[in-house]
């Protein structure tokens, strides 16, 4: 079954939906008309732009360039994490970026090369969307994990310093906290395994079905995606938690002021 291509006039017809929302805003005095207009323009512009970029990216036939595009995506994901993790003087960008590159690269390569068996493994139409999905989803896990770790350091400062003063290494003094933080990062992706298909149909699967794929085939891809997200969240959260925890202590196992 081939997907039905949406023509320009059909796309413009969708502006009717915006008009409905705008009408509601006008009638009820919500003053959302400007935002609606600007949002609609941005949606068209951003998505067409990314469409053309992806067309160009898919034409790339060197693995190095594909990996560079992938790293560019991860860079922005790490940048977003830095924006979300506030209230600490410890720099989280570099550890986040490095752990994301490491974990996402490994998982994406495993999926393309071993599970889906794409030839070559870096074929951009597989590697980039899968990598993007990992980066987008695991970003949340890493933010949650870091937030929990840094808040925990502040809240449990007295207990951590007590352990240090009694001869614990910084690793021993924070082992519970580290486990809590990693667990907090991993739980959402595990919860998603429980509810997928019952509460909502995942976007990727829906997209594939709309594009003409057999639902059973789309489901198989979705399972691969869900499981790879669990792995990438776990690796990302563990690696970033270890990196950032190290940065919160001096070489003499003293809790840094700027971490608090």
């Amino acid at each position, binding site marked *: 079954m081939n997907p039905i291509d949406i023509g320009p006039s059909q796309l413009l017809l969708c502006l009717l939906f915006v008009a409905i929302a705008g009408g509601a805003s006008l009638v009820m005095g919500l003053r959302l008309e400007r935002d609606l207009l600007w949002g609609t323009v941005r949606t068209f512009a951003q998505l067409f732009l990314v469409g053309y970029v992806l067309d160009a990216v898919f034409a790339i036939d060197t693995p190095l360039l594909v990996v560079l595009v992938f790293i560019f995506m991860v860079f922005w994901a790490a940048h977003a994490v830095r924006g979300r993790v506030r209230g600490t003087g410890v720099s989280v960008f570099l550890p986040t970026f490095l752990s994301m590159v490491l974990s996402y690269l490994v998982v994406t390569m495993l999926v393309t090369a071993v599970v889906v068996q794409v030839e070559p493994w870096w074929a951009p139409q597989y590697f980039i969307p899968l990598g993007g999905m990992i980066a987008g989803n695991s970003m949340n896990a890493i933010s949650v994990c870091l937030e929990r770790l840094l808040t925990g350091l502040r809240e449990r400062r007295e207990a951590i310093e007590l352990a240090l*003063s*009694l*001869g*614990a*290494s910084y690793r*021993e003094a924070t082992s519970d906290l580290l486990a809590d933080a990693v667990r907090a990062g991993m739980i959402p992706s595990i919860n998603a395994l429980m509810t997928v298909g019952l509460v909502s149909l995942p976007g990727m699967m829906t997209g594939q079905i709309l594009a003409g794929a057999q639902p059973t085939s789309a489901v198989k891809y979705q399972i691969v995606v869900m499981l790879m997200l669990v792995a990438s969240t776990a690796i990302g959260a563990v690696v970033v938690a270890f990196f950032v925890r190290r940065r919160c202590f001096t070489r*003499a196992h*003293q809790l840094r*002021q700027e971490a608090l």
Partner: protein
Amino acid sequence: MRIDLQNISLRFGDHEPLFEGVDLKVESGDFIVVEGSSGVGKSSLLRLLNRLQEPTTGRLLVDNAPPRDADITQLRRRAVLVPQTPIMGAGTVRENLCWPLSFRANCARIPPTDEVLRQRLDGLLLQDVELDDEARTLSVGQRQRLALLRALLLEPEILLCDEPTAALDGEARSVLEKQLEARCSAGMGVVIVTHQGVSAPAAETRRVILRHQALQVVA
């Protein structure tokens, strides 16, 4: 064991320095009482001796040599700090007392038997505390003595106590002070930070008063 603070100053951020040019020598067998009004930096002085805090300037020597970062857990095991707030983790009295023995730096210590723990609790007038009691539910005064016992079980060479008797009544206070003095006579160094003084100081006690930004040795 000997810890030297030489020409130490400590400041946090852009604030006025807590103290400047402070020299202090602590040795096994010393009994030092640090007095001073609140906020003058008494607790920070103990944190410097335990190396939980790095001085802004000046240097710290352990046995006449700068300490190596790699030996930090060993240093803290030998010069144990008992903070003012007696923090207990979730779990029983027994678990809390033996908790530091789970750290690698303390692995050479043999965990005490229940009989020994019972004896030590009784010695600190904690006869009504059971080893299986939930430690967090005890009173501040009881937890304060538990915190001290937890540190003593590590057999430190120097014990750094921050207001160890603040929540204790007269009798418990004097029992605790006597125990510390006995330990001191047996060779352990003791540094006590207090704003209420020591009730019956031993003859060889050194009194040190921390006034605005400087240390003054009284006797």
